[in-house]
């Protein structure tokens, strides 16, 4: 199928693949925003049970106990940072008019693999191994190895999936694709990563939250 047809919004892939890798073809705006925000909060609360954190736009780390609400707040900050930067990138790169609601909504929905990431930390062996690593014992316990490795693979795959969704969300909501889309997305991602890390640091300081190792 030609690029022109793709540009008109007709999915090249099967409906199943479109739902998996470009759900924004079907869902955007307020619906995407509602679902996305709910998923971010649920994923954050789930992650808190295994001392895990969404400490950056693309970051996920485990092993530091913190208040149950903190990972959810981290997820919301990551979403805002990414959406604001992509909104700016879209204003520069896109020739079309687009809605702010679609940028924020689709970026929220794009973070749904974070739910899989948080769920993966419940695979038996992962949390035990994380607690062991937190004590600076860097050996892998054979009893924990299968669960730890499986969870790590799921976490990495879900993070890559989320990255793909974030780009597709940007491409659909701002109507940018190809080289123009890629060249405007990557700098926005890098700046959003730095911005989210900085915002999280100052938030923790402002809220006087102490994360115990």
């Amino acid at each position, binding site marked *: 199928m030609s690029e022109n047809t793709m540009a*008109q919004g*007709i999915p090249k892939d099967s409906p199943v693949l479109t739902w998996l890798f470009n759900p924004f073809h*079907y869902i955007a705006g307020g619906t995407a925003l509602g679902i996305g925000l709910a998923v971010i909060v649920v994923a954050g609360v789930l992650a808190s049970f295994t001392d895990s954190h969404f400490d950056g736009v693309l970051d996920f780390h485990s092993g530091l106990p913190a208040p149950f609400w903190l990972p959810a707040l981290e997820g919301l900050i990551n979403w805002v940072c990414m959406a604001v930067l992509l909104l700016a990138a879209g204003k520069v790169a896109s020739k079309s008019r687009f809605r702010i609601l*679609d940028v924020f909504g689709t970026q929220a929905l794009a973070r749904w693999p974070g739910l899989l990431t948080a769920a993966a930390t419940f695979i038996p062996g992962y949390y035990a191994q994380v607690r062991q690593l937190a004590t600076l014992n860097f050996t892998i316990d054979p009893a924990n190895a299968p669960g730890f490795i499986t969870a790590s693979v799921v976490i990495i795959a879900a993070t890559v999936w989320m990255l793909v969704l974030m780009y597709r969300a940007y491409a659909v909501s701002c109507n940018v694709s190809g080289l123009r889309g890629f060249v405007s997305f990557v700098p926005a991602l890098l700046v959003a990563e730095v911005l989210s890390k900085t915002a999280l640091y100052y938030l923790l300081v402002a809220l006087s939250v102490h994360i115990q190792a």
Partner: protein
Amino acid sequence: MALPSQCPACGNDIQVKRLECPSCATAVEGTFELPVLQRLSATEQEFALNLLKCGGALKELARVYNVSYPTVRNRLDALMARITELERTRPE
């Protein structure tokens, strides 16, 4: 039978050479270019027609196609670009 807008052999735009009245059989021959809307693909024509039926409301059009608002917005942008291109490359 739908009026074709492209040559089935080479894919180039085609022109009308002959028009005929079905009532009195009067024929007019010449070289007539197809109007811009007729030179759109069947899918593009259907999209433009549905847009008119929805009174230009993209939210309503998104419901008709069962897709999101930005998807129809992007499709409309592509259609606008295509029409601009067709107008620019209008045969002399």
